[in-house]
């Protein structure tokens, strides 16, 4: 029996053993959804590099680890929590995949807005959850999704009522406690911005210690007609962890959606950002990945122009140091009926070492004839002339390189309008590329 088959058995057994203990185990419809997903997983297992979409990312190490399921939340100390929680936000806090009501704060939410843990919302909003769960995902490979559906321990339920504006961003803080070592957590977020509403959601991923664990998170997002939703992710998992994430979004007519995806952490990470665009929808997907040591960071985007007159604008930047590896695969699909589509995609990479690697693969499938589609990929190094110029003015060599690296990355940070989030991402950048004697507030 190969390691992969063995672990399929391990995880398949884990699914069978866990089903009735999971959130909503008493609900036949949910149990049935989970069972179906579990069976599908038992058949397929995790994806392998033989699959086209997983060519560059090998998750076999994850199988060898045979993680066990986290069954309860560990503790998180107050100082750490303070670092993680952003100012001026509503907060939902999850530790090791379990909702922590006493660490969360949801005061002053506008009327008609639901922000709750799935576990808390199940009684009051069962129909809403049922309608959203597994309603958005159109993915060719479903290994991690099935795994998540079968095992999710909790997650956020967010529903913004029609024509309602939620001023403060909603932060979903996912924290791996020191008890997370060799465990796995599955989180499922269900988000709907109803017609004409406006909101901003920020998912953050942090770890108290540098443990090895698996965090598998799926967010399903519906943006109804004329709604405007911003969704950001800041991934700062432990440097030994595995992070597999998916954001699956349906944009309805005239919907506006912007997804900002910042990757700093995890030993191996994969983010699937999918958007299905309705008529005249406006979709922005931006990303920044900053790899060091032997980190592996994989971002997959899939923008499906299913209807005419929609706009998509996609820009991903990678900074790869040491022996890190960045993968970007961006697929744009323009359906036959999606005339007047305007789609742009760019991926620019900066390699800081000879041993760093960037794999970039834009894929355009265009079935309509009256469309604008542009894409560009670059992989480059720091400009030697600029390094010399900065050094000739008194910046030491490392500072000069850091300044140029920071400048390259900062393009994806300076436009963040919500200051606490911008400062958080800046901190993560400056931690990796310190500038001698310089302070954040001078930027």
């Amino acid at each position, binding site marked *: 029996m190969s390691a992969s088959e063995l672990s399929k058995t391990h995880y398949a057994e884990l699914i069978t053993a866990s089903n009735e203990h999971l959130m909503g185990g008493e609900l036949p419809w949910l149990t049935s959804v989970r069972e179906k997903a579990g069976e599908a997983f038992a058949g397929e297992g995790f994806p392998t590099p033989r699959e086209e979409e997983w060519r560059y990312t090998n998750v076999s190490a994850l199988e060898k680890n045979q993680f066990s399921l986290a069954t309860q939340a560990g503790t998180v100390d107050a100082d750490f929590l303070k670092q993680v929680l952003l100012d001026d936000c509503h907060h939902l806090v999850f530790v090791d995949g379990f909702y922590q009501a006493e660490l969360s704060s949801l005061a002053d939410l506008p009327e008609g807005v639901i922000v709750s843990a799935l576990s808390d919302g199940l009684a009051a909003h069962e129909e809403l959850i049922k309608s959203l769960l597994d309603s958005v995902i159109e993915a060719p490979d479903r290994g991690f999704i099935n795994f998540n559906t079968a095992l999710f321990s909790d997650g956020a339920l967010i529903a913004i009522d029609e024509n309602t504006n939620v001023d403060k961003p909603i932060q979903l803080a996912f924290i791996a406690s020191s008890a997370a070592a060799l465990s796995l957590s599955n989180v499922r977020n269900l988000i709907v911005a109803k017609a004409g509403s406006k909101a901003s959601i920020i998912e953050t991923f942090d770890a108290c210690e540098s443990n090895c664990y698996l965090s598998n998170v799926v967010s399903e997002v519906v943006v109804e007609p004329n709604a405007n939703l911003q969704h950001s992710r800041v991934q700062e998992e432990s440097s030994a962890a595995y992070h597999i994430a998916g954001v699956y979004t349906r944009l309805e007519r005239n919907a506006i959606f912007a997804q900002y995806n910042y990757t700093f952490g995890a030993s191996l990470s994969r983010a699937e950002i999918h958007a299905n665009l309705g008529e005249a929808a406006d979709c922005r997907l931006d990303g920044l990945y900053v790899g060091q040591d032997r980190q592996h960071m994989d971002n997959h985007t899939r923008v499906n122009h299913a209807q005419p007159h929609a706009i998509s604008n996609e820009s991903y930047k990678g900074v790869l140091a040491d022996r890190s590896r960045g993968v970007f695969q961006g697929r744009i699909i323009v359906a036959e009926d999606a005339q007047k589509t305007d789609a742009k995609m760019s991926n620019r990479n900066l390699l800081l070492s000879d041993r760093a690697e960037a794999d970039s693969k834009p894929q355009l499938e265009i079935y309509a004839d009256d469309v604008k589609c542009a894409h560009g990929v670059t992989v480059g190094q720091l*400009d030697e*002339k*600029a390094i*010399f*110029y*900065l*050094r*000739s*003015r*008194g*910046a*030491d*060599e490392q*500072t*000069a390189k850091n*300044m*140029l690296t*920071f*400048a*390259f990355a*900062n*393009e994806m940070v300076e436009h963040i309008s919500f200051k606490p989030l911008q400062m958080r991402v800046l901190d993560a950048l400056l931690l990796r590329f310190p*500038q*001698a*004697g*310089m302070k954040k*507030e*001078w*930027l």
Partner: protein
Amino acid sequence: MLKIENLHVSVEGKEILRGINLEINAGEVHAIMGPNGSGKSTLSYILAGREGYDITEGRVLFHGKDLLEMSVEERAWAGVFLAFQYPVEVPGVSNIYFLKAALNGIRKFNDLAELDAMDFIAMVKGKMKELDMDEKFLYRAVNEGFSGGEKKRNEILQMSVLEPSLCVLDETDSGLDIDALKIVSEGVNRLRDSSRAFILVTHYQRLLDYIKPDFVHVLAHGKVVKSGGPELALELEEKGYSWVDEKLAS
């Protein structure tokens, strides 16, 4: 302050400088003139520490220390400044941030405390006014999208903020209209004092109408072929560089 002794420099096996000797004291302004390809810019880059040159013979002493042993930034910390012929565009790094990083690097080396942010901005804004530069340049990326004249002014701004002891100006007059040339020259003249020396590398005499040199050296084929006072520049202007070649031949 600066002593260049028998400096020989090659690039990819081709000898560019063939035994340069120069001595520059504090308070002096030296002009180095010469035709294209004479090695003027190479000399500037050698002083600033650019890579890609083979120094096959000779030495350069700066305040008694071996300049050629110092890294690029060590030279800047010690007080060497090169105003580039083609200032480099640095996208994403704002001018103000760049100036601050540069000044702090130099101050740190000299065991001076960082300047307070408010004092720093006030100081820089004052110098910008003298150079007739709009304050908005502070918040733009270094040299990005600047016109030729704006780039040269920005070099002089950096020079006046960093206050080096040896200023090397490489073809600073190129690409400047007459008004900009005056402003830049005034900026340089303001910095002239008894503790500071200047090397003006230039093809044309024009700059020297505004910045009066104490000494003029003519560089040809990698050697200083003639040295003299300011009158030498005028002679060159009148007779052209072919005159130098003829003299060499005779």
